[in-house]
């Protein structure tokens, strides 16, 4: 059968992207396995394999299944969530500096957590941790909805949205600082512990919730991927293609808010991945959202998965918080990428 001329051209553009996705998935699987095999207990390769398949001492099984596995899985899920959130925020705001936290979600989550920890709000000790996550989640959603309501008046202007986001961050930072001010030593320590991004505290239930939210939001975005691609052409161009840009912005903000709020309330604030993963994805995979969305998610997942492994090995005997690692490893790499990319254009 004769290949149609349009398809011939198009497959030139697309086939590369398919390979990139396959490559990224393989890389993630490898990094996931490495992550499972690395840890302070110093299990050997064989011991770990036995522990994974249940044919081992109970201790080794607990180490692999209850400690390493949740971290390894949540690294991938949180990374993907940040990648997707960052990708769509950058898309609808047409701003390369946008991230899932642009609308003040992480500051609001911190405040929500601080409120419970420092004011010692408690239903029963058993529910304390759930309450902290819940409060963090609610305040993130509250922040997004405030921006939502405020922006309505300004016709969902991109600049206004970003400004409100900055205002919201400052507001919640200030409120959190105030709470820290009246906090006693132990609570302060608890809060500091909560606020830095850390994957070790995520449990299986939270992983399941994050997974479901991630899949649902990803599917919704994926179904809209052509529309989202059109938005990158600019507001008026998208409008002329029949896309209600304001409505688009509205739904994307809600969905990113839910996704980021879930990840922040479970894993704390992990900076940098949400900004950088979409950039890297765009550099290697182009702007077509059918691929960009997936590649952003995969790059984010890979970054966090690798960072999680580094966090366990960089300083022997100490688990470095993952947010610190993403910045330390990621920023030089990112600068290198920018230089490569810009250099190649000239």
């Amino acid at each position, binding site marked *: 059968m004769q290949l149609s*001329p*349009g398809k011939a*051209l198009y497959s030139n553009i697309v086939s590369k992207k398919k390979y990139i996705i396959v490559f990224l998935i393989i890389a993630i699987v490898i990094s996931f396995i490495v992550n499972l095999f690395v840890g302070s207990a110093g299990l050997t390769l064989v011991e770990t394999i036995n522990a994974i398949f249940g044919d081992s001492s109970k201790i080794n099984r607990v180490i692999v299944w209850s400690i390493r596995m949740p971290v390894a899985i949540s690294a991938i899920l949180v990374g993907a969530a940040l990648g997707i959130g960052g990708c769509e925020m950058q898309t609808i705001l047409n701003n390369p500096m946008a991230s899932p936290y642009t609308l003040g979600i992480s500051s609001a989550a911190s405040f929500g957590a601080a409120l419970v920890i420092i004011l010692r709000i408690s239903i029963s000790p058993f529910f304390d941790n759930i309450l902290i996550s819940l409060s963090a989640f609610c305040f993130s959603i509250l922040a997004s909805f405030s921006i939502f309501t405020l922006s309505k008046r300004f016709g969902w202007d991109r600049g206004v949205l970003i400004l409100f986001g900055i205002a919201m961050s400052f507001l919640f930072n200030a409120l959190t600082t105030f709470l820290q001010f009246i906090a006693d030593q132990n609570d302060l320590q608890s809060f500091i512990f909560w606020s830095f991004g850390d994957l070790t505290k995520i449990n299986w239930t939270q992983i399941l919730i994050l997974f479901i939210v991630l899949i649902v939001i990803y599917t919704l975005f994926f179904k809209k991927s052509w529309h989202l*691609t059109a938005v990158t052409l*600019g507001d008026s161009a998208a409008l002329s293609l*029949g896309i209600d840009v304001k409505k688009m912005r509205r739904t994307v903000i809600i969905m990113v808010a839910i996704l980021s709020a879930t990840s922040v309330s479970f894993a704390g604030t992990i900076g940098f991945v949400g900004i950088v993963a979409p950039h890297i994805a765009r550099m290697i995979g*182009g*702007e*077509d959202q059918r691929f960009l969305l997936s590649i952003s998610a995969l790059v984010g997942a890979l970054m966090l998965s690798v960072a999680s492994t580094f966090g366990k090995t960089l300083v022997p005997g100490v688990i470095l918080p993952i947010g610190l690692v993403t910045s330390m490893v990621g920023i030089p790499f990112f600068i290198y990428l920018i230089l490569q990319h810009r250099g190649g254009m000239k």
Partner: protein
Amino acid sequence: MIRTENLVFGYHKHVPVLKELSVDFDADLNVIIGPNACGKSTLLKCLFGILNYEGKVFWNNQDLSKLDFEEKAQLMAYLPQGDVENTSLTIFETVLLGKVASLSWKVTDDQLDEVYNVLNTMNLLPIYDKKINELSGGQKKLVTIAQTLIREPELIIMDEPTNNLDIQKQLELFDIIRQIIKHKKIKFIIVLHDINVSTRYADKIIVLNDGKKYACGQPEEIINVAMLKDVYGVHGKLVKDQNDTTFVVAESSVNEINLFGKE
């Protein structure tokens, strides 16, 4: 086709840009002309419903304000003034986006061939995989036009599409438009600055002045010395070529310019 009834719009209260405008765009190639800031672009935005106007816009006999963007986009395409934003989409992908309403995960061969044909028509095939942010202004315009053409709506609204195009490209563009009208039965409403291009190609010219309809009709009825003076404020004369097409030669401004005092 599309017509307006008593259209009123102002960006600020009590400062109307369009003043009770009633226009019927019933020809194949309707061209709106008029001096700067007379409300040409605003009129197009109202036709497409981006702005909240008073009065009515009818598509045949249907009130257009009752439709949402997606439905309107199936009837007509609106090509705004200015360039698309910088994006790293390739030309091929950008043109394909014109089909956004009917695209699904798997792009069909037919859709891809349509893109191929349009790129071919617009002479964009050799640079199909260039990224938008690597293009010149003129190339970007061609890509946007290609994107609009691929949608095959019943009506295409274009806001100064010849900006950034050299003379040859301008003429080529209108030849393309003419052929589209002939073969695809698509109608056009185009805002233009160049009166001579308008008279050569338009079936109907609408002259706007200060938010009001100054005149409306076939080029030879509309274009005259009095209009030039009233609307554009220039003294000029009319010339006819061998095809009986009227051309305007503007000679001097009505206003005297005395930058350094009277000579």
